[in-house]
């Protein structure tokens, strides 16, 4: 039957044969629209980051102009009113909070990185398969925990044991200025804030380190074993040189996360506007918690100062994140 139809089609010369479709590399209209929409969506991250910068700068500009560089170098936060409720004088300085942010975040990284690297090594090269599967899930889940959960847990559970460890550190390392503490009060110290920050960034640093370690070239691993290396000798000769910059990048990413943390630090840290280098002493600061603390009863003028503080924090985390990304990416190029 088909054959007959075909024959009749051939015989019927008058039947219209459609013109061959034009072969072209020119995109269709639908594709142009599609590519336009997707590109616009893709560029949204640029737009959002730009807008954040622009609006915080716009709102905080007055403060930057009136305070100048002293916004970053002094550590007072005063607003004075006259009887009518007008602002007579104001003085905003972030230095205590900035230094506090850096101290807390840096200590957290120092605590978290060895633990994370050990965990990542364990998961990549030591753990039996079922332990590995279980622990990877647990670590991923931990990364999804909300920060308020960490904060409240830290306040009720971590604080007592953290204070105990702080006391111990103080007892044996009192001669090092960073660990000295004349007041003998160990609660609400930057050390405890660092502990909770460390716990919060362990999942991030662990998963990045694990990813980097898993890219270590298998042939070199096997070559090391074939030469009679123990597991540690193999790790030292192959995995660590390969993964070093990736781990540093992961640590920087953790640093950025720790700098921007708000709620968890707010619950445990005793915010005071004074520069404090002693991490065991219960006085500290953090730009993000400062914003949360002052926001509730802030006057419109003070809110501008908080916007300026937010801008400083934004730029700080952006710089840290960019450098982290560069480090991780540099490895990505080399590993393949």
């Amino acid at each position, binding site marked *: 039957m088909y054959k007959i139809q075909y024959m009749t089609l051939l015989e019927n010369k008058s039947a219209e044969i459609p013109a061959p479709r034009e072969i072209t590399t020119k995109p269709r209209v639908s*594709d142009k629209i599609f590519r336009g929409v997707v590109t616009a969506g*893709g560029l949204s*991250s640029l737009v959002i980051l730009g807008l954040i910068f622009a609006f915080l700068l716009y709102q905080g500009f007055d403060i930057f102009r009136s305070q100048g560089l002293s916004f970053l170098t002094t550590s007072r936060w005063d607003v004075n009113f006259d009887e009518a409720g007008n602002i007579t004088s104001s003085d905003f300085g972030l230095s205590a909070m900035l230094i506090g942010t850096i101290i807390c975040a840096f200590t957290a990284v120092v605590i978290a990185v060895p633990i994370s690297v050990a*965990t990542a090594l364990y998961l990549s090269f030591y753990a039996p398969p079922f332990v590995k599967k279980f622990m990877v899930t647990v670590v991923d889940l931990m990364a999804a925990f909300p920060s308020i959960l*960490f904060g*409240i847990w830290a306040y009720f559970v971590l604080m007592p044991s953290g204070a105990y460890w702080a006391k111990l550190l103080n007892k044996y390392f009192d001669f090092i200025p960073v660990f000295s503490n004349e007041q003998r009060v160990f609660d609400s110290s930057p050390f405890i804030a660092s502990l909770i920050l460390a716990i919060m960034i362990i999942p991030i640093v662990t998963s990045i380190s694990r990813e980097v370690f898993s890219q270590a070239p298998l042939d070199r691993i096997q070559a090391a074993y074939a030469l009679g290396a123990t*597991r540690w*000798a193999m790790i030292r000769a192959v995995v660590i040189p390969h993964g070093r910059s990736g781990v540093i990048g992961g640590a920087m990413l953790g640093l950025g996360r720790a700098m*921007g943390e*708000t709620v968890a630090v707010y619950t445990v840290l005793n915010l005071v506007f004074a520069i404090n280098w002693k991490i065991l002493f219960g006085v500290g600061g953090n730009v993000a918690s400062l914003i949360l603390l002052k926001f509730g009863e802030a006057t419109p003028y003070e809110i501008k100062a908080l916007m300026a503080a937010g801008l400083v924090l934004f730029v700080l985390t952006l710089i840290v994140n960019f450098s982290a990304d560069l480090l991780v990416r540099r490895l990505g190029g080399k590993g393949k």
Partner: protein
Amino acid sequence: MSSNVAPVVTNFDHVSPIRPWQASVRDRLITTGIFLGSVAMSYLIIKLTGLSGKLGFFATFLSVFTTVNATRDYFRFGSASAKDSLVNTLVAAGAFITIVPISSILYTVISKGIKGIYPALFFRDMSLNAPNDPLNVGGLGHSIVGTLLLVSVALVFSVPIGILTALYLTEIKGRFSQPIRFLVQAMSGVPSIVAGLFIFSAILIPITKDNSSLLGSLSLTILMIPTVARTAEEVLNLIPNDLREAGIALGGTQWRTVAMIVVPAAKSGLITAIILGIARIAGETAPVLLLAGGGDKFNFNPTSGPMGSLPYYIWRSFGAGSPEAVTRAWTGLFVLLVIVFALFAVARFLGNRKVGK
């Protein structure tokens, strides 16, 4: 003649493969002995010195166990083996330390939060009660509604943007791919309070001048986009190129190929990306405190009026300080944790299914 030939083994039942790497019974006994010995020794050390507590015991045990093992290996096989066994213990200890806080968090939240759970909790609000009131009055229904509204409005904005970003990175691969990947990474590091401040400065001050949960959702959108975009990018990268080529070869335009072939093939993975994004923002506190106001009664309108949410409920109860209020906070955390857990389980389930079906 045949008597000289060794008998051919035909029955292999009694032959078992040897595993020279496996620990013998003797080895295991020695390991157990060392373990128990270390426990006893660290107990003694703790009794003799000023150390105390579970953490002190753990630290002492760790160092004793490591030292004993390393010394033994040193005398058996030399220094390389001693180092290996040292690292062995340290690495396992690192993994153990990672597990400790999460188990403690789970234990605390469940044991303390379960006390405040009762059925009516989920249907009542706090409009007539303070956090310090007895536990059998009030409830957190309004905060669950608030969190659901906050998250679903945030989804409306963040899912299209996040997935379009991922599509740009995987399908178009244009000139901006590298910078955009960079910026998405940078965006995932934006502190949540900065996202809140941004919406405050850009929308609340100049336009609405009042709190609403819509603004909270907008700030959550900023936090959610990077999570969705990065996970979706990974998933879309897993779709084999054959599928795309097949679509083009059949005469489909790129738009048809992506919409009819690539996205449906990656559907479960994309849902995983969205769910991970939700888990990321469901418990976000700081921007919600700044923008959504925080209400104590049911509010179903995202565009006006103060909106309660689970983080706000937890925050307010925690701040009130009395034992009842703190139990309320733990209960709120328990509910939040259950939500995150459920989302996570669904994401895992979908993520484990084979991509491309």
